[in-house]
């Protein structure tokens, strides 16, 4: 049996990973939760940029890939990002066998599958480095692995699990062949890749990996350590591209998703960004010429995260452009017709999902449903209002839970986990969840830091 459970959150912009001791679910001690320091660069060691850049004669990974892509942006070159979006398409095999676009691979040698395997190898090597550097994990610890994924809309996530695990298996085999060179800021030469990748594809073994739905991971970090956590939960996940609503029920040791409650709306953070930007442009009467308006648009997009956060948290935001101050209040966003349509759909979808989960709770004689908001939009007032609304009928009661659980404020973290918790939440929740919460499992077990079969370093 493994000593630790490792969960990988393969994110759109960043990948994250965390470990928790096996059995943490039943004997929870916040101090034993360990987010992994995946990144050697940047101020936030816990976030690994999800990016691959195919350069003239090399392939670069992570932050270095993004920097190089920025440097070559004027040559119509781009880094491959958003792997997660690719993994969510209904015909995954076909998508993986597609050639990478010319902007991403000017040599026309890589299929999307190759680039994903290369990135996963980089991610696995980064995880290994983080484990070795952590004094409480390094000495012979063994790990069971799982990854978090949304309950994908267009396809069957659990059905795609075998394909995803196969990709991880190929990545593990590739990493074993190239060793630590993959973590070098210089990346890997095309020659090394063309030698090693076909071998890795042949040598790939099916790893033992679990799949945990992101909503289940949210349920895990919210409920862990609570004596009366309740058996049913509704999760609202507002990310950049979509807002997903999911309902879960814990039945004995197992957690199931109630698929009839699942709703996905195509409006989310990016949609709100556009509304904010359009409202500001409307109010900036002095910006009449096209170049003034496009300059203001790029200022807005660069500062959007801060502007949106201020609007949502403080009710308004003020920004500067060309010596002028512009203030936008949340009230103005509420007046926007597109926003009103979105909010109406969101309320209806939430009500539908809540009715499903409350019916299930009622039928099983349960008295409570927990409501939680996760993702980048978790703290927005209209999402918080949604999960805190009073119900007409009193039972089962709906209990809103905080986006950051109380245990993240534990004294051991000296106030430092809570501010970054939302970014790491899914990896942490996935590591804490018991096996019974997994949506799928595959293959055989091997410790995450097992180096057997790793050849001696070359060059």
């Amino acid at each position: 049996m493994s000593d630790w459970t490792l969960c990988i959150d393969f994110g759109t912009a960043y990948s994250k990973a965390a470990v928790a001791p096996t059995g943490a679910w039943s004997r929870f001690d916040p101090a034993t939760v360990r987010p992994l320091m995946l990144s050697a660069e940047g101020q936030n060691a816990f976030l690994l940029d999800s990016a691959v850049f195919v350069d003239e004669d090399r392939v670069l990974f992570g932050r270095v890939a993004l920097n190089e892509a920025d440097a070559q942006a004027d040559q119509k070159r781009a880094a491959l990002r958003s792997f997660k979006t690719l993994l969510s398409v209904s015909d995954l095999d076909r998508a993986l066998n597609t050639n990478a676009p010319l902007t991403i691979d000017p040599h026309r040698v890589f299929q999307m599958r190759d680039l994903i395997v290369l990135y996963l190898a980089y991610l696995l090597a980064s995880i290994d480095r983080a484990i070795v550097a952590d004094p409480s994990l390094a000495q012979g610890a063994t790990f069971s692995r799982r990854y978090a994924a949304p309950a994908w809309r267009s396809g069957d996530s659990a059905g795609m699990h075998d394909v995803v695990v196969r990709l991880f298996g190929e990545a593990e085999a590739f990493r074993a062949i190239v060793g630590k060179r993959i973590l070098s800021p210089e990346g890997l030469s095309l020659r090394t890749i063309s030698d090693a990748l076909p071998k890795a594809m042949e040598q790939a073994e099916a790893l033992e990996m679990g799949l945990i739905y992101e909503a289940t991971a949210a349920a895990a970090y919210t409920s862990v350590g609570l004596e009366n956590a309740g058996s049913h939960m509704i999760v609202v996940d507002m990310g950049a591209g979509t807002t997903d609503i999911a309902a879960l029920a814990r039945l004995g040791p197992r957690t199931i998703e109630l698929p009839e409650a699942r709703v996905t709306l195509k409006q989310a953070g990016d949609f709100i960004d556009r509304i904010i930007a359009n409202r500001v442009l409307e109010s900036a009467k002095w910006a009449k010429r096209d170049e003034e308006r496009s300059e203001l648009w790029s200022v807005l997009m660069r500062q959007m995260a801060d502007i949106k956060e201020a609007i949502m948290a403080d009710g308004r935001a003020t920004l500067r452009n060309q010596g002028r101050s512009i203030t936008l209040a949340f009230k103005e966003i509420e007046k926007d017709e597109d926003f009103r349509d979105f909010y109406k759909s969101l309320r209806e979808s939430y009500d539908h999902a809540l009715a499903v989960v409350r019916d299930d709770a009622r039928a099983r004689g349960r008295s409570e449903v927990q409501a939680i908001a996760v993702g980048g939009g978790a703290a927005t007032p209209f999402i918080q209002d949604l999960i805190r609304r009073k119900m007409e009928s009193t039972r089962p009661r709906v209990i809103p839970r905080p986006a950051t659980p109380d245990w993240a404020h534990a004294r051991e973290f000296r106030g430092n986990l809570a501010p970054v918790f939302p970014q790491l939440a899914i990896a942490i929740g996935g590591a804490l969840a018991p096996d019974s919460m997994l949506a799928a499992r595959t293959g055989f077990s091997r410790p995450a830091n097992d180096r057997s079969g790793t050849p001696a370093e070359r060059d």
Partner: protein
Amino acid sequence: MSAGKKTKPKKSAARQRAAQGVLTDALAEAAWGEADAALAQALADFDEAETAEKKGARKDALERLGQALSRAARKRGLSRLGDLDERVEFDAEAHDLNAPVAKTPKSVRIQARGVTRGGEVLIKPRVAPADKKKRS
């Protein structure tokens, strides 16, 4: 139990403490990275507020200063306690009285919100006796 066996748990505990320290420092650095940028912004906005010659420009700079400070606070996990001008029952344990009074007031208004982090109150709300004529 042999002496050798006694030292093992000590070593293990020391390693755990060291590991926790490394993790906490890295978490702090991650959280401070974004807060630093907001604080730098706040310093620049403060200078603008101080040197602004026109009332409107000063008001704008103060608005941005407040926004930058709020952002830095959020990045450090701080949140406000109470609402400005909210009328509440006075609690000597929970409030700081912001005005000299001859008699302990029953009802007060919040002049400056408190600040908390994870249930710990870092600054109590500053209050002043409520005007009896003014009803909320």
